[in-house]
């Protein structure tokens, strides 16, 4: 193929994968139910090569799917049959660390955890901490505007990035910086899912490591009381560093996996971490414990030292794999709702679980209302993935209906295109398509992701009118 030959001129053989075998690891991201074999995988080693690949792809009108570490959970870096995957894992250098200014400048392929490790000696760290932080790339974090356990207090990726450099299909570089005036293009790039440009350099804000941290574990006899307790804490003027909730199934699974002493008879468990100066942490931990007791917690435990703190978190951090041991497959949702709706939405999810005959485990970022229901299913049972997706779709619809959103941190990708039709009207979608066209008039950057076509939404609308009878059943649907 001409495009492959052209790419061979700028990339060495080991940086251009074309065989089935070599391409296989790039066929999907962490949403592995969706797979596609790309034309080829380009693995440039520097920004000049990235530009060259983009120019060639433009010349031959070949779509480009940018990929970081492929840990995305929404199919954002799912290849296209006739497209090139642009893998940035070789752009993995930390270009600058300035401890006095508290910034680091990194290439996009640098893994999230590596930044905090590299600056630890200065008493600094990079705050956004997705659970996938040992693997996911900073470029991918920006493209998804990723969050983590600590983002209630320290913000999402968008709050911790002060400048980025992007490259467009012409190979032209642009810098978007917090010091710019006029509209905020830096903010726009966060969460743009690889549709607006290839991010090739990122300046990160570093924070001083908190002097102290303490976690309060509270067990509840009911999910409702636990959900209300979340509201009580925030109402009292405390912003915890982390505020995570687990339901009965997750508690059981996590305890079986990590053996950290979670009360397995509890209906719901709350882990609330406070951090800051020694003085402040002492005050806050005590207040949190009091508030949670008043809110109906029947058992409270405060970590007495760092080892205990880490142990209490260990169960939570391993909850996903722990739940995974009880089911051949699980499907992770990402809806976000107003906290006041937590109890109601969890109840509704339980009802849906009965309706679809699929178990759900709830372990999530309660502090920012970000749910991660894990639907347990078996991909080998015919039709069960489809049932799971229908169940998931209903959960997202529920989130939108209570004033929330279909995705808090994982992005739309290909997975939530239909749900986007539920969240946005036609004019907003038109604006989104307009924005895409301004940045990428070729339409070659990660086409078909993140924003549904108006046609698709119109068809979905049609679908509802006809009581589930699909219009044009021969057309492909994700």
């Amino acid at each position, binding site marked *: 193929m001409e495009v492959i030959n052209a790419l061979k001129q700028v990339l060495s053989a080991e940086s251009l994968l074309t065989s089935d075998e070599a391409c296989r690891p790039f066929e999907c991201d962490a949403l592995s139910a969706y797979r596609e074999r790309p034309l080829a995988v380009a693995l440039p080693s520097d920004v000049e090569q990235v530009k060259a690949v983009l120019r060639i792809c433009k010349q031959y009108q070949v779509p480009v799917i940018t990929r970081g570490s492929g840990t995305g959970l929404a199919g954002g870096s799912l290849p296209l049959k006739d497209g090139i995957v642009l893998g940035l894992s070789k752009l993995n250098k930390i270009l600058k660390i300035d401890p006095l200014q508290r910034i680091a400048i990194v290439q996009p392929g640098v893994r999230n955890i590596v930044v905090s490790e590299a600056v630890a000696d200065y008493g*600094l760290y990079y705050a956004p901490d997705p659970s996938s932080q040992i693997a996911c790339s900073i470029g991918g974090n920006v493209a998804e505007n990723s969050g983590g356990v600590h983002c209630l207090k320290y913000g999402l990726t968008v709050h911790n990035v002060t400048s980025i450099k992007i490259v467009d299909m012409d190979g032209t570089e642009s810098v978007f910086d917090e010091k710019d005036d006029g*509209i905020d293009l830096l903010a726009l790039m966060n969460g743009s899912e690889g549709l607006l440009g290839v991010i090739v350099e990122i300046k990160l804000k570093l924070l001083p490591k908190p002097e102290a941290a303490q976690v309060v574990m509270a067990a509840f006899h009911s999910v409702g009381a636990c959900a209300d307790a979340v509201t009580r804490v925030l109402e009292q003027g*405390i*912003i915890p560093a982390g505020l995570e909730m687990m339901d009965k199934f997750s508690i059981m699974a996590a305890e079986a996996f990590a053996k950290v002493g979670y009360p397995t008879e509890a209906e719901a468990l709350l882990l609330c971490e406070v951090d800051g100066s020694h003085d*402040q942490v002492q005050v806050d931990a005590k207040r949190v414990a009091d508030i949670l007791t008043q809110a109906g917690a029947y058992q409270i435990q405060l970590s007495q030292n760092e080892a205990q703190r880490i142990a209490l978190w260990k169960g939570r951090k391993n909850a996903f794999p722990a739940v995974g041991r009880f089911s051949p497959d699980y499907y992770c949702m990402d809806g976000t709702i107003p906290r006041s709706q937590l109890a109601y939405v969890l109840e509704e999810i339980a009802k849906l679980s009965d309706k679809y005959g699929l178990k759900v485990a709830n372990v999530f970022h309660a502090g920012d209302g970000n749910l991660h229901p894990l639907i347990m299913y078996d991909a080998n049972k015919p039709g069960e993935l489809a049932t799971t997706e229908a169940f998931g779709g209903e959960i997202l619809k529920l989130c939108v209906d209570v004033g929330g959103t279909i995705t*808090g941190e994982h992005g739309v990708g290909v997975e939530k295109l239909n749900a986007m039709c539920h*969240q946005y009207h036609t004019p907003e979608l038109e*604006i989104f398509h307009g924005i895409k066209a*301004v940045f990428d008039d070729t339409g070659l950057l990660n086409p078909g992701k993140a924003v549904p076509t108006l046609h698709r939404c119109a068809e979905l609308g049609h679908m509802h009118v006809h009581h589930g009878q699909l219009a044009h059943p021969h057309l492909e649907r994700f």
Partner: protein
Amino acid sequence: MPQHKNIDNQVMRWCEQIKQAQVDQQIIQISGHHSKVLRDAATESLSTAGYEGIVSYEPAELVITVKAGTKLSELKAVLAQHKQMLGFEPPDYGDSTIGGTYACALTGPSRPFRGSLRDFVLGTKLIDGQGRYLSFGGRMIKNVAGYDVSRMLVGSKGSMALVTELSLRVIPLMEERSYQMEMSENEAILLMNQMAGTSLPLSAAAYYEGKFIYRVAGAHPLQTNRVGVTEIDNDIWVRLNPFRPQLPPDVKLWRLDVESTTPAIENTIAVGSCGMRRWVASKDKPNHPYTTLWQAYFAPRHNDTPRVAHLKNGLRDVFDPHHIFKQM
């Protein structure tokens, strides 16, 4: 498809006004209480003044939704009743509205520690240049569905859309104390950067009139134990924000955004934002890439690369294809 949104009468009238302006080929200047923009006789004016009030506020959700013409003073008062505040401490030029503050991307002294205005924006309702009423983002702290239009429009200065409603994240009102220490500008720049890298919960740091001034939030070690440190009133931050020094008529005020550790710049009269902002008083424009002439209204810098200018113009066409809204 989602349900139809509730549209109030004023929003409907504005939609009509904008559509009519397109027919009449009339340019519209959006303003609040004119605390930051000069009136322009050549344009039709559209004022959000009076379009005010809290749309919804549940303190436990840490989110408030307000109409764009709401005065900052009112907004702050409502939040204070529930022991909450705006984390970005916007400057109040006298009757400043939240919409105008958003449009001009104005943040106060807490910016390096708590974030800038756009960091607190969760959602907007707006009318575009075709008179369409649109909604972006929402009231969630986390939301990555669709491009982040409500943050992107921060700083758009009324040139792309009429923002009618804003949802903002709010933070608990903190007990804070302010301190000062005499020293040279360069010593202060070094010290504020060093302190920001420690666990001391700083919420503001500046240099003004020969003194390093800083503010600490919440429980913290007594600062007056440090040699040369005295406690001062917190209202120093209101006096510096907005920064409106008395200058001789031929001297201009320039706002420079720099790397926080940049050594003292000539003619600087105040250092803000923990070193990231420098206020320079001089006749001529300081030679620095991020320099803005600071007057009653804000002059844009116009120093974008061709590609960035192309992107901005393109985005303007997306929101306002007929160029109804006046450019700053």
